[in-house]
């Protein structure tokens, strides 16, 4: 059985330098696309909540080709350790 979606999102940041919500969705769609919470809005909200609580941090912002906002997040070494200590 796969991890809960929120756990998988946080775990993903321990494996990459940085990612925006679209990167996270792309990486997790194989296992999680059928989940009800697998929407851009819900996952954006989950990432912002994680950032607000210091589990990840914002690395940069950009615009895509449609001028939609892309917010990139990353986990510092300390944050990666913290995520790994909570989620096995």
């Amino acid at each position, binding site marked *: 059985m796969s991890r809960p979606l929120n*756990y998988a999102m946080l775990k993903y940041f321990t494996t990459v330098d940085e990612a925006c919500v679209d990167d996270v969705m792309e990486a997790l769609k194989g296992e999680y696309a059928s989940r009800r*919470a697998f929407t851009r809005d819900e996952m954006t*909200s989950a990432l*912002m909540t994680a950032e607000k*609580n210091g589990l990840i941090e914002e690395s940069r912002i950009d*615009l895509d080709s449609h001028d939609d906002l892309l917010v990139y997040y990353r986990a510092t070494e300390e944050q990666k350790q913290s995520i790994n200590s909570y*989620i096995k």
Partner: protein
Amino acid sequence: MQGAATADARHELALEKKRKLDQSFLKKGLMIALYSGITYGLYSAFIMAAQTQGVWADWMGTLEASSFLVVFILPTIATALNDLFSAVWALLLTAKQGKLGDFIQTFRSKPGIIMVAAALVGGPIAGAAYVIALSMAGPIVTPIAALCPAIGAILSRFLFKQPMGPRVILGILICVFASGMIGFTGLTGALGPGVVPGLLLAFIAALGWGIEGCIGGFGTSMIDPQIGITIRQVTSGSVNLIIILPLLTLFGGGDLAITYQCVGQAFADIPSVFFFVASGFFAYTSFSNWYRGNSMCGTALGMACNGTYSFFVPLCSWIIIGLIMGIEGFALPAIAWIAALVMVAGITVIAVNPLDFLKKKGE
């Protein structure tokens, strides 16, 4: 040159969009946290209304008001019933959202265990401490219990390094003062016999709720809020019924058979069960939004918004029990309205940095 200008313009646009995203996230968090305060008022009103119905009305009419059963056991049964119905609501909605598998997995994980601990401290432990404090010292304990937002904010400052400058401290103090204004209206000058231990227990309750708000909010940054609240209510409901209730009975020298006979009668009492089903639904809504609001706004602001329950509890009780059910004794004191305005001022002080406005105007 033109390329650099275009890049600058795109960066400015990105910054503007990010500012709007942050604002809408904060507004959403504020609404969620305030909604938790309103639904706490509804939950409290329905749980009080339930205790005016059926077998509860019989108990209140025939049993000695200061008896151990009335003061300690019946309120704990009411809380257990409410939390169990709340757990059923949470489980049903978790199943409807297809998250039961995640719920079981989360329960066994470290964040899930932390959530169970937060639920234990804030649910059965703080709840029982508050019920006993009320009976020992009287309504004077209410303003002490209202310290919980301040305690939650202080704990979050130290545990999770959440920011807490002088402006936030001032806002929290204003909100605590406002809650105290309403709490003190319950004072009649007649203090209960155990004032000092009562106040100590009320502080333990405030500490428990502060810990729950702080830890539950952080937990919800890792756990889906729907799953978080399901863990909370399942834990609280079952521990109240299986552990707290027999412990209280035995410590008070009561009879376990009578206690569980009351539980059985309460479960089978259709008129009051309808009210407990409603109170359970609003408890589910209130606590899930409390955790979620705290995780989105930070504990200080989230708990200050949730603390508006000090106003919404008497307001909802007056509307539901006083106006709709026609039971006397639930009129809303005028000071509650004044305190509500003071609370809004306190929340605004926490939420809005006047310097941000000045900066925007200067831009």
